[in-house]
């Protein structure tokens, strides 16, 4: 369980590094507790790109339903850990159904 979460956190961290570029990434503390807007200071288009990468990596996860219950501020205030927990939970649920 924990290793699955750690792996997802690592993937999100990689996606953020890819989007912001190596120069910025080196200055950021990208931890599970960091929120996209306050911790890592992504703007809305960078957040969108990170989410797009997650959508491609986890096509079975229903991000649309989850995010559609939030406004922009709420989405950008999510922490990496919260996103990882959602992905792990949804992936396990899908696996149980299969």
């Amino acid at each position, binding site marked *: 369980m924990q290793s699955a979460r750690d792996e997802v956190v690592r993937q999100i961290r990689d996606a953020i590094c890819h989007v912001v570029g190596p120069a910025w990434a080196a200055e950021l503390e990208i931890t599970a507790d960091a929120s996209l807007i306050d911790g890592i*200071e992504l*703007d809305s*288009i960078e957040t969108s*790109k990170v989410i*797009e990468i997650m959508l491609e990596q986890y096509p079975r996860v229903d991000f*649309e339903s989850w995010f*559609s219950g939030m*406004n922009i501020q709420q989405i950008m205030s999510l922490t990496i850990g919260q996103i990882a927990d959602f992905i792990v939970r949804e992936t396990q649920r899908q696996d149980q159904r299969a």
Partner: protein
Amino acid sequence: MSIDAGFSLNAITLGEPACPPILFVHGMAGSAGLWVLGYAFHLARNYRVIAYDQRGHGLSPTPPRGYRLNDQADDLEQVRLRLAPGPVTVVGYSYGGHIATRWAMRYPEHAAGLVVIDSPPLPLLTRDIDDLLDGLPALLGGDFTREGRFLDPLKTSLRDDILKRRRRILNTKSRIDALKATTFRSDVLSDTAFDNAEFKRIGCPTLLIYSTQAGHLDYAERQRTLIEDCELTLVDGGHDLVTADPDAVRHALERFMLQSVRPREMS
């Protein structure tokens, strides 16, 4: 996503490819992020949602020239061609509404619908463009003495972030600084108002969503009377309606889509 001009525009798509497409065009100094985070997840259950960053904006590159409305409408057409090669509904906010309108005039055969959200009349005001290109970078750099109708509200809302020189503030400043080094200013100021005959040529169903307080209602009414199949929806509030009241804007858009997209085009 590469286009014929020889560079790539950043574009994001959500929803099933078989669903009716909606293509979003952001406003000046904006990005596709507004549409993705604020609208796309709601709409992607029923529609193919496409949002892109215009040249010189967001994560798209900043070429030295090509910022007139015709250039931008051609960029939009390239995005449509690559990501939704059939009739699409195009939604444009503020200056993006002008790009969408110009596109519908240039490419009527591909326009399934047009939605214009609170676009002010053309031509743009020199003072406003100077606020954007000179005043805003100065403010973001910490100069709070600058004044302007767009700048004044930002002095309060962004004050803490500016003083802390937050990363996204520096990002925005560097993007605008890059835009200043192009023909953007002269290009956008050289675009003239659409004439009556051009509005009358728009043949697709059109929805105008205008705010009650931004002061553009006369222009909205002029469009409504000139465009053949056109309705006007008012949303209480100011020009920031797309972020201040996204539910009202989205509901108007969804209602329009249900009316304007024929059932056989629905998935």
